[in-house]
């Protein structure tokens, strides 16, 4: 038992390193230098999910279209991205954005572009499933009342479908928040790279440092997950009520 306590207290002896560098983990060198750390991770996740929403919405609706020239490109995009590791997509953008644009692209920008394109494919599938979940009668009734297909989609189907998709969007946001840690591979100074910097600088307390940032990620993601679970339950209740009316 004594051994255990010795081992256990030894485990957590070096938190000082974490506290001394805590502001670096949170915002990087921010007031003096560029933004980094957790703040950078959050900025990338927020911009990423916002961009991915629009790409995903477009790709999801294209995928649902009956015109092959619209649905095929969307299908190919979705399948390729979903079958490829995010790390690969990040490398693609990192190495080829400069070639395509004939000028250097900062790492942060190319990482965000990769996140948008990657997450867009997953959002497209959410959008597709969400639209398909709306009963067919809704579209038929809207068309029957004289709306065009586009009008029916924009005013009748999408508002209902998007509301049901909110929990899935939150889950995707959680995934993206975790995935921003991969941007470290191309030297974006987000939370994970900041932690590695702290470790290489001090060469001390790797367990405390990586545990600390794991807890930071966990705090954000868990709160969001719990929130989305609550939303899901509320959606289920709402749907149970409306399907009763039907």
């Amino acid at each position, binding site marked *: 038992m004594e051994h255990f306590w010795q081992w256990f207290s030894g485990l957590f002896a070096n938190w000082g390193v974490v506290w001394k560098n805590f502001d670096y983990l949170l915002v990087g060198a921010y007031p003096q230098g560029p933004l980094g750390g957790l703040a950078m991770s959050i900025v990338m996740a927020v911009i990423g999910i916002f961009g991915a929403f629009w790409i995903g919405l477009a790709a999801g609706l294209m995928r649902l279209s009956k015109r092959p020239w619209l649905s095929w490109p969307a299908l190919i995009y979705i399948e390729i991205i979903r079958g*490829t590791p995010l790390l690969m997509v990040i490398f693609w953008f990192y190495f080829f954005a400069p070639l395509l644009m004939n000028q250097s692209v900062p790492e942060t920008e190319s990482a965000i572009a990769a996140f948008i394109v990657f997450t867009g494919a997953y959002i497209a599938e959410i959008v597709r499933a969400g639209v398909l979940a709306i009963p067919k009668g809704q579209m038929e009734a809207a068309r029957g009342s004289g709306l065009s297909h586009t009008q029916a989609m924009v005013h009748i189907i999408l508002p209902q479908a998007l509301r049901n998709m909110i929990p899935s969007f939150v889950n995707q946001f959680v995934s993206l928040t975790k995935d921003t840690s991969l941007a470290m591979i191309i030297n974006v100074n987000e939370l994970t790279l900041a932690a590695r910097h702290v470790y290489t600088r001090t060469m001390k307390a790797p367990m405390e440092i990586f545990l600390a940032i794991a807890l930071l990620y966990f705090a954000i993601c868990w709160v969001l997950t719990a929130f989305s679970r609550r939303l899901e339950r509320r959606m289920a209740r709402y749907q149970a009520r409306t399907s009763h009316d039907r």
Partner: protein
Amino acid sequence: MNYTFNWALIFSGEYGRWFVDGLTVTLELSGISIFFALLLGTLLTVLRLSRVRPLVWFSAGYVEFFRNTPLMVQIFFWYFGSDPVFPEFFKKWLYQQNIEFATAIIALSTYTAAFIAEELRSGILSIPKTQLEASRATGLTFIQAMRYVILPQAFRIIIPPLISQFLNLIKNSSLAMTIGVMELTYMARQVEAHTFHGFEAFTVSTLIYLSLSLLVSFIINQYNKHCLHIGSRR
């Protein structure tokens, strides 16, 4: 864009071999990890469904923590910071292995186990309770009822999500390159660094990942169709 393609280079000499080696490591890593992840995931599910409160809390906490932290951080934790956590005999054994490969297996299987535990739990919970009650009433013991009635149904439900977890694992194994495991992504970067023909190198490795995952999802779809067929026959 002034870039000249040279596809022949990628398949010439050593480079073709590198891709094959990388794919082999990716498959080994994923195969071994999925085995341990299934074991650990099943254990976690059993704990979660048990009636012993502390075990339930442990399992739930494990699943929440591993699902809500990035795999990248977990890999670094195991690689740089796990030293004080492991018991002496395990460390001795571990340091005789290929340490990067072993660390990647630990990280990937502990991470994936959390997801597998969730799938398994929801699979078992989705079987109506009356199934168990009815089979107990016909005279089967609890274990027999599990073995012949509940689990066959639960497994049929969860095999497709399990296979897609395997698919995720294959893709996640690319992160092992950050600690120097020479898997497919690592090799693609290696080829890029040697030839400066990144376009070709990343195309080849992307195509390999893509065909792997298309193959796996083809299998899922076939299985689903097969199940639907069985369902409609009854």
